[in-house]
């Protein structure tokens, strides 16, 4: 079904992505992610000691979310919690026990799909800081319209007009030398598993599964973009050194 989006994109088309790392020099790692929505992430750590209620046998992750304008309120606390739990499941926490890694997320421009951009920026910042991770977390946003079609990467206007949207985070796609069968879990490849899912608005259960399919396809494209971006920047820095 053809659908008219205001900026002329097709249903499955993402906005142009730009990602750069090592932009802040005092932070141990930093990254900026922009697809119209622009988010800056900085990583400081690992620092000694954990907070009071946290398990000292594992590394701890602390997230601070800074909105573009206004005071910090409940939406910011919710984003912090979701980001913290997502990154805790992606990082290898047993490598540096009893340490805290702080991730500060600053929203520079909010034009839809804010939380996915923040998750992508935070992952790239963690890579820049050299924090050990199992895999990357690739985040996409899918929007469901009243007639049931699903569009990817909505703008803020589209998010508000549509009946529901879902933020989905998947592990990045795997290029492996092992035969394909050995990497499957329950008959599905590892990158089909959902790390995080946040939905907003009413949709039918079938719409949600349709979003999952579209989200998985988009996450494969995003994984390729991230892979190219990381390989390119690492060859640049090795030439400089």
């Amino acid at each position, binding site marked *: 079904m053809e659908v008219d989006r205001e900026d002329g994109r097709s249903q499955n088309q993402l906005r142009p992505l730009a990602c750069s790392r090592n932009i802040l020099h005092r932070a141990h790692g930093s990254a900026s992610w922009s697809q119209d929505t622009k988010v800056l992430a900085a990583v400081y750590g690992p620092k000694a000691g954990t907070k*009071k*209620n946290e398990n000292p046998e594992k590394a701890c992750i602390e997230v601070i979310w800074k909105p573009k304008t206004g005071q910090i*309120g*409940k*939406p910011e*606390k*919710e984003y912090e*919690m*979701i980001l*913290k*739990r*997502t*990154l*805790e*499941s*992606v990082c290898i926490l047993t490598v540096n026990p009893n340490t805290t890694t702080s991730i500060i997320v600053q929203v520079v421009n909010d034009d839809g799909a804010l939380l996915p951009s923040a998750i992508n920026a935070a992952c790239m910042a963690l890579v820049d800081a050299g924090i050990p991770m199992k895999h990357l977390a690739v985040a996409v946003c899918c929007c469901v319209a009243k007639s049931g079609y699903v569009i990817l990467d909505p703008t803020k206007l589209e998010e508000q007009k549509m009946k529901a949207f*879902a933020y989905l985070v998947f*592990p990045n796609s795997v290029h492996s030398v092992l035969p394909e069968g050995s990497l499957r*879990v*329950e008959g*599905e490849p*590892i990158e*089909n*598993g*959902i*790390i*995080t*899912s*946040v*939905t*907003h*608005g*009413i*949709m*039918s*259960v079938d*719409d*949600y*599964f349709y979003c*999952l399919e579209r989200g998985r396809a988009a996450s494969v494209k995003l994984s390729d973009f991230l892979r190219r971006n990381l390989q390119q920047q690492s060859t640049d820095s090795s030439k400089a050194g």
Partner: protein
Amino acid sequence: MGLPNASGDLSTEVEVDAFRRLFPLRFYEKHLLESIRPDARPLGRARETTIALGAVASANGSALAKIGSTTMLAAIKMEVMTPSLETPDEGCIAIDFHMPPICSPIVRPGRPAEAAPVVAKQLSDTILSSGMINLKELSLVSGKAAWMAYLDIYCLDADGALFDTALLSAVAAFSHLEIPVVSLNDDGKIVLSEEQGLSDREPVNKEKRKINLSSVPFSLTCVLHKNYILADPTAEEESIMDTIVTVVLDSSSQLVSLQKPGGTVLAYTSAIQDCIALTRQRVKELQKILEEAISGMEVD
């Protein structure tokens, strides 16, 4: 390490408790192999749920909901306010969730719980986006006066599944809510009507009425651990197994929200389908419990 003999003297009981504290995950896994949990519940069953309506006499609507030990008290107070210019025919609902120090040993007056603002926002989003309440019903005089409903939910005991219990208590409080009678006084302001016969002013709404609830949302929180799905976790289970999935369905089986904030276990399609199926069952149970509580009140 073999499981200590349960039918023994004090020394074996101490061993079981010590094992539970020292190796919580292994303690749980031994139970999960037999498809049961330490409190003898099968994996897919939620804890015993009760609802008591009208717990707070001074509020316009209130309810006390308990799922197992988790207890939430919800109360609604109504106030008249001027509606905003963009929506002159609609009232407003303000939802707030509090976790006072009584609910859990980790919450102290200077150390607010991290879960409180998150649950408050999720509740707010769920109740407003589910369309349970038509805000136009809260309007009094178009453009001049409308009802503002303040819903406050207090957690009295935090033992896992906070969002489920909070949503249940909010829904029960709204089903108990009676909108008070008001009338327009000489200055053009809305005032609460006094007893019948005393006032010669024309009441704006004739009698206390209940609010119409359509497509009521109900939720179920599940914990994923390896291949197991545990419905309605206690606080101990939530702290050991960190992958939590909360599914909110309304009475017409539409998905209002599916939250899975991170977690070590990745959720594949089959796990999501199982969680949704468990939630559908739970919605039917909760609907029955709510209807019994409402009909119990009406008999009085």
